C-alpha cells in the first residue's frame, strides 16, 4: 500500500530546472535509497515532501489524499519528519530544547502556562535511552560531538508518531560505529511500519538497508528498482551517466 505518491513533480529555481517530472512511490514500511550526484535534485525532492519548497507542477498524494504543505510544520504535523543534512540544530539551545522546538510542552501555574522543562528533559532522556545514546538532554548542542548531534536530530523524529522519515545524508559526518547505529535505527523504524527515504553518498549504507533504489540525474529519475535487481556498479554508472537509465 502506497503511503506517499509523487506524481510528475517539477521544480525550477529561476532558469534552473532542479526536478523534471519526477514520479515516486513509497510504500508503508519501505526504505527507499535515493541516490544521485551533487545537484541531482535529491535534497530538493526531500524538501518538497517536507513542505520547505513547493513544487511548480505535479501533485503529492499522502495516504491517498492530495496534500499541499506550504510550510515545514504542516508536514511535521501530518507525520512527516526530516533529518536534514546539516542536522538543523540550534547550537545555543539544549538537546531537549532542540528536540521540542516548536513542539514545546507546558504546565499551568495559576492559569499561566510555563514551559515544562522537567517533562521535556525526562522525555528526551527516554528517547536517548531508546537510541542507546549517552547524549544528555540538558547539554547545549554546541558542546556535542558529531554522533551526539546526530542523536538529537534523530530523537526529534521519534517525538511523535511519524509515518514517514526523510533522511538527508544521516551518515555523512559520524564514526563507523555510529553509522552502524543509524542503520540499525533505520531498520527499527521500518519494522514499526514507518517508511523511510534515505539520501546517502555511501553506497554500502544504501545497499545494506534499502528495499528499493531510486537514482536521480540532473533532476530526472533515471532508475527505480528493487535493490536485489541492482548492484553498486550499476548505480555508479547511473549516477555518473555512463548508463543512461535502468
Amino acid at each position, binding site marked *: 500500500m502506497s503511503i506517499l505518491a509523487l506524481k510528475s513533480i517539477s521544480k525550477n529555481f529561476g532558469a534552473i530546472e532542479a526536478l523534471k517530472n519526477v514520479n515516486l512511490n513509497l510504500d508503508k514500511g519501505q526504505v527507499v535509497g535515493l541516490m544521485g550526484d551533487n545537484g541531482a535534485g535529491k535534497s530538493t525532492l526531500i524538501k518538497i515532501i517536507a513542505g520547505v519548497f513547493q513544487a511548480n507542477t505535479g501533485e503529492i498524494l499522502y495516504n491517498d489524499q492530495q496534500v499541499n504543505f506550504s510550510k*515545514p510544520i504542516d508536514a511535521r504535523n501530518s507525520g512527516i519528519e526530516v533529518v*536534514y543534512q546539516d542536522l538543523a540544530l*540550534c547550537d545555543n539551545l539544549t538537546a531537549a*530544547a532542540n528536540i521540542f*522546538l516548536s513542539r514545546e510542552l507546558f504546565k499551568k501555574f495559576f492559569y499561566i502556562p510555563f514551559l515544562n522543562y522537567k517533562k521535556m*528533559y525526562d522525555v528526551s532522556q527516554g528517547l536517548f535511552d531508546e537510541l542507546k545514546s549517552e547524549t544528555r538532554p540538558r547539554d547545549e548542542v554546541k558542546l556535542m560531538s558529531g554522533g551526539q548531534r546526530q542523536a538529537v536530530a534523530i530523537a526529534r523524529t521519534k517525538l511523535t508518531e511519524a509515518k514517514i522519515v526523510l533522511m538527508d545524508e544521516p551518515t555523512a559526518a559520524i564514526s563507523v560505529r555510529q553509522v552502524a547505529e543509524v542503520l540499525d535505527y533505520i531498520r527499527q523504524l521500518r519494522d514499526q511500519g514507518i517508511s523511510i527515504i534515505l539520501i546517502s553518498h555511501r553506497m554500502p549504507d544504501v545497499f545494506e538497508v534499502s528495499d528499493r533504489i531510486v537514482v536521480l540525474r540532473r533532476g530526472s529519475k533515471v532508475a527505480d528498482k528493487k535493490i536485489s535487481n541492482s548492484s553498486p556498479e550499476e548505480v555508479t554508472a547511473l549516477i555518473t551517466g555512463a548508463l543512461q537509465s535502468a
Partner: protein
Amino acid sequence: MENNDNNIGSTFLRALIKDQVFWICIALIIMIVVFSIIADAFATGPNLFNITRNFSFIAIMALGMCVVIITAGIDLSVGSVLALSAVVLGIVMREGYSIWLGAFACFGTGLLCGLVNGYLIAYVKINPFVVTLGMLSIARSLAIVVTKNAMIYEFGPDEDLLNEIGGGATLGMPNSVIVLFVLTLFFIYALNYTAWGKHIYSIGGNEEAARLTGVNVNFVKLSAYLFSGLMAAVSAFLMVGWLGSVTNGIAMTYELKVIASTVIGGANLMGGAGGAFGAVIGAALIEIIRNGLLLAGMDPYWQGTFVGAFIILAVLVDKFKITTRR
C-alpha cells in the same frame, strides 16, 4: 538563561560561574561598595532614588533591545522612536485629549515604528542595521516636523496625572522603577518560560534550523521589533511625565546606551545569547559608573572613557570564558 530547579549543588555553581550576568552582578556590588566608601553622598536615599529612576528609562528600552539582539538583529532607532512617541503624546494631550488617548497614541506610534522595522527586516529581508538606521533618521525627523521644532510643556487637563505617573513615587519607589520591575518579570517569563522565548533564541542560534523545524521565523522576528518599539514608547510616556516637557531632541543617542546595557548584560550581537535580567543589570551598571564617578569628584568628561572601557571589558570576559571552555 534560567537554571532549572534540578541543577543544584556543584552543577549550579559551575553554571553560575560561566554566566556573564553573574560576573556583572559581582562587578555591580563591588562598585556600589567602592563608591559608598569614597563618595559620602553615594549611598544616600535620595541618590539611590535618582540612580534607579535615571537608569529605568534606559533599562525599559534594553528589555526590548535584548529580544531583538538575541534574534541576531539590532534596533538603532529606539532613541528616535522614543522621541517621536513622546512628541505625539505631548501633542495629543496639549490639544486637550485625555491621558488615555495620549497613551494610546504614544504606544501606537512606538508599535507602528516597530511594525515598519520588523516588516522590512523579517518579510522584505533587508538588513536590520540598515532598516533601523533609516528609522533612526525618519522618526527623529518626523518628531521635528510634528512639533515644528518647538517645545511642548502644556499637557491639557490630565497634565498632573501624567507628571505623577512619570515623575512620582509609590511606597518610596519611583514609578518608572516599578514599571521596570514589572516589565522585567514579564520579559524573564516570556524569554525563558514560553515557546515564543525558545523561538527567539532558536532564531539567533540557527535561523534556518528554526525555520525547518517549524518555527514561524518571520512572525517571531517581527514581534521582536514590535516589542522594541513598544518599550521605547513606554519609556517615552514615563520620561515625558518626569521631565514635565518634551522637545524633539529628547533621548538623542540613547540607542547607544541601550545597546551598551544589553551587551554588558550578556547579549551577543551575533545572536542566540542574552537575557532580560542581564539587560537591566547592564543599564544599572552604566548609571552607577556615571553617578559614582561624578560624586567621587571625577571630571565628567572622563565618564565616556570609563563606560566605554567597561563595555569592552565585559565582552572580553565573555570571550575569555568561551575560549577556556573549548
